[in-house]
């Protein structure tokens, strides 16, 4: 079970710093003890094995304590972006029937009518003992963080029936119908990735590992658990810093970060705007990146500026975490072809399935399918959709269809060619274009909608949209973006929405994506 990494490190090095959050920190002993308090508080409310508990907090010491405590209680943590619109937060809470949630006082009134919730734990921005929950009127039990931390910090009795197949967490990702879908990951799946990743990254005890990715994104699984496994120190990056590349560069240097993992666009911002040459970064040894294609122009500049670290391209959808990897070489940087996604890892197997259903040989294209221990357990509450993605393929009884088209080069290295469908990446975030289109169509003045991306090497893809409005509609593009903000996370709100008289269509009547892109490019 994932929390055993924490318990083992707490036994071996209780005084070692486990997490640093600005001026505050927790040692392994303290993190272990505090997470026991959370686990105990949840168990006392009857929450345990098989349950889901929401983690609706900014990245903080409390969030790290919370997720370990949730797992120790036997439940799965469901991390949610605190900046999500209310619609999305409540959708997720109801969809997976959360039994409990860790959240902030401002959200209490909104969440108390989620029927499945038996307990709400309120965590303030600056924990004090002064918050008193309003008098009970029925509804979920309210606990404050102080209540939880007042409990016994002794370890709990291990659950006899706990199994590595139990869910560790559920990560919600964009669904094509506009509703997010929950990817269920077991302890077994997380272990397979973490054990491999900690080894390839050569995480050493007392290394400073950055925590850049939010906890609802699967890159955080490396940050949290590879660090705990190796008794290294997790340095939480304040949200404000990732907005200012120059200061982020200072932070990485000043905090002696040794291991960095992020989406490529964070690194391109650092290279282009962070003035990296002001620092030597002597501690930085490993740079991992995943989630989108890294434009070679910026990767070259990064490696030129910081030649010492080893650079790794990691690949895998949330459904499999990481399944292939490629070590960046000087030869890669001299070419113009995109980086390969490389060789299989984590104990998985990969298969390339041709359009005719047969297995592709070297030099042939097909869909990448993955079998092995890192696979998800399925999509929460979506048996039909799960069956479409997880199932038998030639050569294996159970594989995950990634939807990515690849080609296997001589030598076995895999290269990404693109996607068959309308899934795109914006700054590493996965977006189903149809989800954006569906939300736009919910607006009464919108008759038709089309979402698309315009590529930009420095900022990554930019999300745009076109709409055809009802006659005499007075809705402005700003109104529509506000409407999107009511349903969609920030990264799924189009940077720009334009009205047009009609959407370009192909001869078969489908939206002509190519002409839409041209149309978008011509706008000033």
């Amino acid at each position, binding site marked *: 079970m994932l929390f055993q990494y924490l318990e083992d490190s707490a036994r071996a090095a209780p005084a070692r710093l486990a997490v640093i959050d600005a001026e505050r920190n927790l040692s392994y002993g303290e993190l272990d003890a505090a997470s026991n308090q959370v686990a105990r508080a949840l168990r006392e409310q009857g929450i345990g094995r098989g349950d889901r508990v929401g983690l609706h907090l900014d990245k903080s010491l409390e969030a790290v304590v919370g997720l370990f405590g949730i797992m120790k209680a036997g439940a799965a943590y469901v991390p949610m972006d605190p*900046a999500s*619109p*209310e619609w999305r937060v409540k959708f997720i809470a109801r969809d997976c029937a959360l039994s409990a949630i860790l959240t902030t006082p*401002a*959200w209490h009134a*909104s969440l108390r009518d989620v029927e499945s919730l038996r307990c709400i734990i309120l965590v303030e921005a600056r924990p004090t003992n002064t918050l008193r929950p309003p008098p009970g009127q029925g509804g979920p039990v309210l606990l404050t963080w102080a209540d939880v931390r007042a409990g016994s910090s002794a370890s709990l009795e291990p659950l006899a029936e706990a199994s590595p197949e139990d869910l560790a967490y559920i990560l919600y990702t964009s669904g094509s119908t506009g509703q997010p879908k929950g990817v269920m990951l077991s302890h077994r799946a997380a272990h397979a990735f973490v054990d491999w990743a900690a080894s390839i990254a050569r995480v050493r005890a007392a290394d400073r590992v950055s925590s850049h990715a939010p906890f609802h994104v699967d890159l955080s699984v490396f940050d949290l658990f590879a660090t705990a496994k190796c008794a290294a120190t997790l340095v939480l990056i304040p*949200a*404000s*810093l*990732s*907005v*200012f*590349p*120059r*200061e982020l560069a200072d932070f990485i240097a000043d905090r002696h970060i040794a291991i960095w993992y992020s989406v490529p*666009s*964070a690194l391109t*911002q650092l290279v282009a*705007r962070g*003035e990296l040459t002001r620092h030597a970064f002597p501690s930085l040894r490993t740079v991992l990146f995943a989630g989108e294609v890294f434009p070679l122009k910026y990767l070259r500049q990064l490696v030129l500026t910081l030649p010492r670290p080893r650079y790794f391209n990691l690949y895998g959808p949330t459904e499999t975490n990481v399944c292939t990897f490629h070590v960046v070489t000087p030869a890669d940087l001299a070419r113009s072809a995109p980086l390969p996604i490389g060789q299989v890892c984590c104990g998985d197997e990969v298969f390339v399935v041709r359009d005719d259903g047969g297995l592709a040989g070297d030099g042939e294209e097909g869909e990448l399918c993955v079998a092995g221990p890192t696979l998800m357990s399925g999509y929460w509450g979506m048996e039909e959709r799960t069956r479409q993605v997880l199932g038998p393929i030639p050569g294996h009884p159970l594989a995950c269809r990634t939807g990515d088209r690849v080609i296997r080069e001589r030598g076995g290295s895999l290269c990404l060619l693109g996607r068959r469908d309308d899934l795109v990446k914006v*700054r590493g975030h996965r977006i189903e274009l149809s989800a954006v289109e569906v939300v736009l169509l919910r607006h009464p003045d919108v008759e038709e909608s089309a979402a698309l991306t315009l590529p930009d090497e420095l*900022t990554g893809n930019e999300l745009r949209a076109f709409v055809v409005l009802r006659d005499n509609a007075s809705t402005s593009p*700003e109104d529509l*973006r*506000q409407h999107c*903000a*009511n349903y969609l996370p*920030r990264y799924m709100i189009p*940077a720009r929405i334009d009205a047009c008289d009609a959407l370009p269509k192909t001869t078969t009547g489908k939206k002509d994506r190519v002409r839409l892109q041209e149309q978008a490019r011509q706008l000033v």
Partner: protein
Amino acid sequence: MNQTVAGYTEEQVARIIRDHLDQEFHFRSKDSGLADDDSLIARGVIDSMGIFRLVNFLEQRFEIAVSPPDIVMENFRSLQAIRAFTVNRLHGRDGQESH
């Protein structure tokens, strides 16, 4: 606040910036309103792409120059900070125009 710099009063600068932020970086938060000294990042108003779009806007709208060392938290953390930075730059612009 009635003195003008490069043709703008501080109040006008503040309003132009606030209107732009409302339009470009609309947000939904549990409590309403954005105070002058609220942290724009903590409130989720600006993210890593937003900051550079905002800089472009300031450069174009006010005809000032913003260079990389200027793009730090101190100058952009709140409405107040952005206004102060912009007015400071307008003074620089003003000083270069002949009277």
